[in-house]
């Protein structure tokens, strides 16, 4: 049989889902993160609880009715609890949230994210929308997974503005600046999976997706990327993963 080609969002959602374990609590967002989380819940993690920024705990989204924003009615469907937004984030500060997802952004070699401004803060060349909850998620969750398309413009040696701190200038700076919990555990892109060197906290390629070479990843990453010894290859999305994922978004509003 011939299968439909896998889109960038589908690849991110499948790889994101595989990074989640059963019985985790996951702070998720719209787009690829919500698809990844809902997919994991339907496959290997039935005991997973989703939490959404607008103030939602444990939704059970209706296929075909996925939310466009994290605080609209669709995001709350089937929820167990609708706390206020401040109280929801305070659950993360308390330590109740194991994993947080952050979507597309400008990211640097130490996992810092910029969604605020290209250029100076006061008079930017490009004013981006801002942190929203990204800063809180990266500061307060047990660990963070970044899901992003691997476009060279998104990968920079050092972001112009640290909206959401990864490891700052590397080493133990994150901890020294007061962020004593969490950190960016991995970056999942359309080319591969990345972690961070435990000493320097520089980004390190751990695996490439099928058909992608290390040289291609290097060519799309405008900073000196570390490459793990014996870099692996991920398994391609399975038919079952794709079928369950596609059933969530039959109109392909998010899958592309």
């Amino acid at each position, binding site marked *: 049989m011939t299968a439909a080609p896998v889109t960038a969002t589908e690849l991110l959602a499948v790889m994101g889902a595989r990074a989640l374990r059963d019985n985790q609590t996951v702070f998720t967002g*719209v*787009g690829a993160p919500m698809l990844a989380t809902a997919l994991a819940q339907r496959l290997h993690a039935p005991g997973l609880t989703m939490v959404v*920024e*607008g*103030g939602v705990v444990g939704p059970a989204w209706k296929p075909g*009715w996925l939310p*466009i*924003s994290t*605080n*609209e*009615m*669709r995001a*709350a*469907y089937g929820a167990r609890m*609708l*706390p*206020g*937004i*401040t109280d929801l*984030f*305070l659950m993360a*500060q308390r330590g109740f949230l194991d994993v947080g997802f952050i979507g597309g952004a400008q990211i640097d070699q130490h996992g810092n994210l910029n969604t*605020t401004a290209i250029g100076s*803060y*006061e*008079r*930017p*060349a*490009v*004013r*981006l*929308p*801002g*942190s*929203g*909850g*990204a*800063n*809180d998620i990266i*500061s*307060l969750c047990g660990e963070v997974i970044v899901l992003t398309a691997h476009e060279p413009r998104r990968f920079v040696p050092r972001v112009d*503005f*640290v*909206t*959401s*701190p990864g490891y*700052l200038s590397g080493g133990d*700076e*994150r901890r020294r*600046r*007061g*962020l*004593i*919990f969490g950190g960016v555990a991995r970056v999942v892109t359309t080319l591969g999976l990345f972690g961070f060197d435990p000493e320097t906290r520089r980004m390190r390629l751990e695996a490439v997706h099928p058909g992608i070479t290390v040289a291609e990843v290097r060519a799309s990453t405008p900073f000196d990327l570390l490459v793990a010894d014996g870099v692996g290859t991920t398994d391609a999305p399975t038919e079952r993963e794709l079928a369950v994922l596609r059933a969530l978004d039959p109109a392909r509003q998010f899958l592309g």
Partner: protein
Amino acid sequence: MTITPREFDFRAARARLAAKPKSAGEKLTTLEAALGRVADGDHVALGGCLYSRTPLALMWALLRRRPRGLALSRNLMCYEGEWGMVAGAVHKVVTSWMGIGLPWGLSKVMREYVEKGRVAVEEWSHLGLGLRYRAAAMGVPFLPSLTMLGSDLMDVGGSTTLTCPYTGALLHAVPALFPDVALIHVHRADRFGNAQIDGYPHMDADIARAAATVLMSAEEIVEDDAIRRHPDRTVIPGFAVDALVHVPHGSYPHECYGLYDAEAPHFTEYVAGIQQSGADSVARYLDRYVYGPTTHAEYLALFGDRALADARRRAHEILA
């Protein structure tokens, strides 16, 4: 540093509350009279979140008064922030994020106003801004938190850190934000302003306690008994409320949980206009939707009864 002592001075804020009548009596009035309580230069905080339960009718009535020099704060700022900029009403927007949502891209109006230095956007993390309102709601000048530590957001407003007196840990001292005015839209209130919200609470209860003046609109004004039967559902006490206006569809074309869905095609049309002619398109939108209609009913009539009925039907479908 862009935070001002007026925003975090808890003693001054307490004195303002001491001087405020905290009546258990009638609060019902008109949009025009309610918004007459906003002065040029005030800090106005908006309830809801993004395009959910936005106090759009109150914002509509505020902009019709052609205010100047306002600071406007909201956790996630939707296009009402663009209205404030283009109307020349706002000199500072305080928020964690501004736009409409993923399908509508970056806010071109915010880009234009910020990149040209015409309006300042003071950015906080979402929880950071939530804790600013929470600290004010608690009557304290700051709250300790881990959020925003190490990030460049610390420098934007002028945040500082403190060392925990018990554990020695480094903490962000998130400064309180006491708004002059809160604009809040709720599902139901009695005529004294005791208010109940369905679905998402967002940050409204904190904002109502934080502000010196609370101006509220409600989808429904209910009998005294309806509130007394379910006092556990009341999230804003009447004594905090200065003015209350009965405005059905008071968030439309944004959503109001359980009652009506957001009008996504209207957002798309609004953004298409901006793609074509930038802020001029918003100026024309304001002429048509804000300055043109003389009553809120006339504003709703621009959308038509069928659109309103359809938005109500969709809300039922979404939650069914």
